[in-house]
């Protein structure tokens, strides 16, 4: 479902004091941002921190947020992705090292069907870590939320061609990362 198109035809709410504005932003967009944050992070704690950091940024500069549901959502989503990108850049090197150093793959584990299923899911989700936050956001918004390419482009302020390119490259990277997993399931 494309929530953006619905949001764009809604009337623009009146803007009260900055506090009211921030409260309204929080109530209107929290769930949406949490869903995105959870799909960009490894666990719920990280997702909650990411959402809180996004709203704190909004609380510090409420006047910089454009008015209107769709514009607010776009602003918040971009801030969230940027914060995640900064976190991702800091931890990426370390994560690569840890994966290489451990030499373990969840695929190598054996156990019951339930365990294997959980491991498989974790492996798929972990494979998303190879994607940059923006690409990952585009992939999850398109593949899991079903948001159209044009709506994603509008939300992130980029061209549809760029969105398609990210989708294509994201799928390619994921396929590569999941190759071992898919082969194991054959």
């Amino acid at each position, binding site marked *: 479902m494309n929530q953006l198109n619905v949001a764009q035809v809604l009337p623009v709410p009146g803007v009260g004091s900055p506090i009211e504005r921030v409260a309204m932003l929080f109530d209107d967009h929290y769930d949406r941002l949490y869903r995105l944050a959870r799909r960009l992070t490894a666990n719920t704690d990280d997702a909650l921190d990411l959402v809180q950091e996004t709203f704190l940024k909004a609380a510090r500069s409420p006047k910089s947020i454009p008015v209107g549901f769709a514009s607010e959502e776009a602003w918040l989503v971009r801030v969230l992705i940027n914060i995640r990108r900064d976190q991702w850049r800091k931890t990426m090197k370390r994560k690569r090292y840890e994966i290489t150093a451990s030499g373990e793959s969840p695929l190598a584990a054996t156990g019951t069907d339930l365990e294997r299923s959980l491991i*498989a899911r974790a492996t798929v989700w972990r494979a998303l870590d190879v994607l940059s936050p923006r690409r990952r956001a585009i992939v999850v918004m398109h593949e899991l939320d079903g948001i159209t390419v044009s709506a994603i482009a509008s939300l992130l302020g980029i061209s549809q061609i760029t969105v398609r390119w990210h989708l294509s490259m994201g799928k390619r990277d994921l396929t590569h990362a999941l190759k071992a997993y898919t082969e194991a399931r054959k």
Partner: protein
Amino acid sequence: MKDIRELLQDADPLRQEPLTWSERRDSQRNVVLATALAQRDRPRTERRARMRLFIALGFVTIIVLLFAEHLSSPLISNVHAAVRFEVRLAEENPAAGLHTAKVSGTDRSVYLHDEAIVTNGDIAGARIVQADSSSYNVAVEFTPSGADKMRAATARHIGKPMAVLLDGQVIMTAIVREPIADSAVITGHLSKDEAERIAGGITSAR
């Protein structure tokens, strides 16, 4: 074999987890609103501090201006470095009623008339003009009444010298070739600093 979308849907953590936890959500909401509140109050505090600073600076400025004449800091002396400007008719030979004056930077003397033709009050503006690579002149523009005085005085003084005085010192003399009216140029191999000081001083003493 599942495609990427199916794999992601299977692995999507939101399928297994609650969307969010109301307690944590409420707690986060409080933190965010507290930050917004602090942000709203911060400009007020900053404004108050700025206001106090402006008031303090205002007091200091008033005190400095009140006692400026009793202070001898370079800043104050620059502000009050007015230059007394005069143009007087002069003669090459001594005569009764003339005052002898030395031309600054030379051994030459001229004999000045008692009354100044124009003074600072007759100056509309003064600016520096570059003469060559290292020296500057000061162009002086007279007010309409100053120009009338100059024209009248110089018209009956053709072929005789005229002296420009700064702070009572004759800094240049020139032979009047034709009546001078609207403007004059002070020459004398002035450095840029000297020219600026003279131009600024002439106009500040109006």
